[in-house]
């Protein structure tokens, strides 16, 4: 980051203009609906029904207190974070290992395993939910946390392995061969050479996996039979009635659910940046 700061190239005017326009447009485009979400959550329900778009004439915290009460957020949050973090960590560990194996260890099985793994990229959770449910019922792991985490890992690992593989592939073989000549086994190489270098891809895998787990809700409500193991997303989907109608409550709940994520992101940003710039060890 600091390197690019030192380099100040000439910026053609057209380029600078389109940069500003693009950023401005996109920001407004993003902010507009979010602003509407935000101020609607402060409107009393009657006002929302009377006019969905209008700026609030009265501001109220009722929606928030109701959402907090109904939503049972603290423990839903714990579950969401638990599933997302555990899945992400496990996926990272397993996928980088497998990616390394496929990329750098010669084997005639790699082609087969790799294609096999990529099929998972194309399977949707919704087409799998009934058979997985039947299987989990048979094994007795429905309504358990492990019953959610294991499928999460499986569904996210394909893309992660692909990312890890393409990253590891770009590591110079000289480094690895040098370690081999020194007598190190592949596992040791993985541990002491590849893993330290892999922070950029670890971060990428982490972002994709975490986001995918965080917004998922079909698997959770299918596998769970009560609130104990449900997540924030399921809780939010329950606030949308089919025949009844309460935008303010739902939006307040969405605010409560998502703002902590932004806070977390603000904290981890520094870590993410630090991790990324480690990757430039090229000649």
């Amino acid at each position, binding site marked *: 980051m600091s390197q690019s700061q030192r380099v100040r190239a000439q910026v053609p005017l057209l380029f600078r203009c389109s940069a500003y326009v693009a950023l401005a447009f996109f920001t407004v485009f993003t902010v507009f*609906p979010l602003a509407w979400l935000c101020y609607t959550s402060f409107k009393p329900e009657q006002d929302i029904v009377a006019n969905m*778009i209008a700026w609030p004439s009265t501001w109220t915290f009722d929606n928030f207190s109701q959402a907090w009460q109904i939503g049972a957020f603290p423990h839903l949050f714990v579950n969401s974070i638990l599933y997302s973090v555990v899945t992400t960590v496990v996926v990272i560990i397993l996928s980088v290992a497998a990616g390394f194996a496929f990329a750098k260890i010669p084997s005639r099985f790699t082609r087969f395993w790799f294609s096999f793994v990529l099929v998972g990229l194309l399977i949707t959770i919704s087409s799998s939910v009934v058979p997985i449910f039947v299987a989990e019922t048979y094994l007795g792991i429905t309504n358990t946390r492990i019953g959610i985490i294991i499928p999460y890992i499986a569904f996210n*690992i394909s893309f992660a392995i692909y990312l890890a593989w393409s990253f590891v592939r770009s590591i110079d073989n000289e480094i690895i061969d040098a370690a081999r000549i020194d007598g190190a086994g592949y596992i040791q190489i993985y541990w002491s050479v590849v893993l330290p270098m892999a922070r950029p891809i670890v971060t990428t895998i982490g972002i994709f996996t975490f986001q995918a787990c965080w917004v998922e809700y079909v698997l959770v409500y299918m596998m769970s039979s009560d609130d104990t193991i449900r997540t924030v997303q399921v809780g939010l989907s329950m606030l949308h009635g089919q025949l009844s109608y309460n935008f303010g409550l739902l939006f307040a709940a969405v605010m409560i659910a998502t703002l902590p994520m932004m806070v977390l992101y603000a904290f981890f940003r520094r870590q993410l940046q630090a991790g990324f710039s480690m990757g430039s060890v090229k000649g």
Partner: protein
Amino acid sequence: MLSTANGASGRRLTDSVHSNATLARSSRADRMSYALLSAPALVVYAVVIIIPIVYSLALSFTDWGGSGMPHFIGFANYISMFRDPIFWHSLRDNGLVIAISLIGQIPLGFFLAYILYRQLIFGRAFFEAIIFFPSLLSPVAVALLFGVVFAPSGLIAQVIGMILHSNLFELDSFNSESTAIIPYLIVILWMYTGLYMIIFLASLQKTNGEMLEAAVLDGANEWDLLHRVVLPGQIPVFMTSAIYAIAGSLKSFEVLWIMTNGGPSYYSNVLGLYMIQNTFTYYKYGFGSAIAVVLILLSTGLILLLARGTQYLSARFE
């Protein structure tokens, strides 16, 4: 000559020479390492994913309706699918979704990331956060949000109404068969560009600063830097993003389901939604599985095409 982050072609020869030598030496220990490193991932994956693969494949050749014994009916499901106009329209809509992802989300995400990376504006953290935020929102909320934005008397209609000084202006341009999917396209652009932006931002950090310096000293301006130095190095990231985008575009439907329910009529249907409707609303599990299989084949085909295309592009840029 500028070399990219990937090894240049000169590497390959030495690769194979070395690996032959090492292969000869301790292949048994190597095989053990290979197994140990890849097995955990493969086992978890296989155990879970095998189930839906076998299930979908097997059921797609039956007429199972959710109860009783399935009857084998050969390719009948596939044939009726290809005769169904709703299938073709859903395919078309899905094509548009993929197109927006590939032509809209990814380049836009890259462009925004580049702007932020090169610090061409102030307040980087703020923009990062705001643009990334939508990808973390619950699909239910997003669908309702934009349902109101695009509604005939919704946000956009009211804004236009204010401009035109007409109280009863109604936005009905999205009611037709060809345009019904457009609101959804805008929504996914809104939702996911931020995700790609973050990924590109991460990957841009890896760019060799010295190379950039050298190029600037050589007289390159910002635009040259972008398309001669930085872009070629990002092709692998474009590739992986594109794969993710294709797979995701063909799979996702939740926002669309709540936002339009595939309507009006079937005008904004997509394959994922088409599959859900047939499985859980019409209880045609066999047919639904056939749709799932077709989805898999489609994605495979597209990704292979993409891989070819990227190979070609990389070769050009080397």
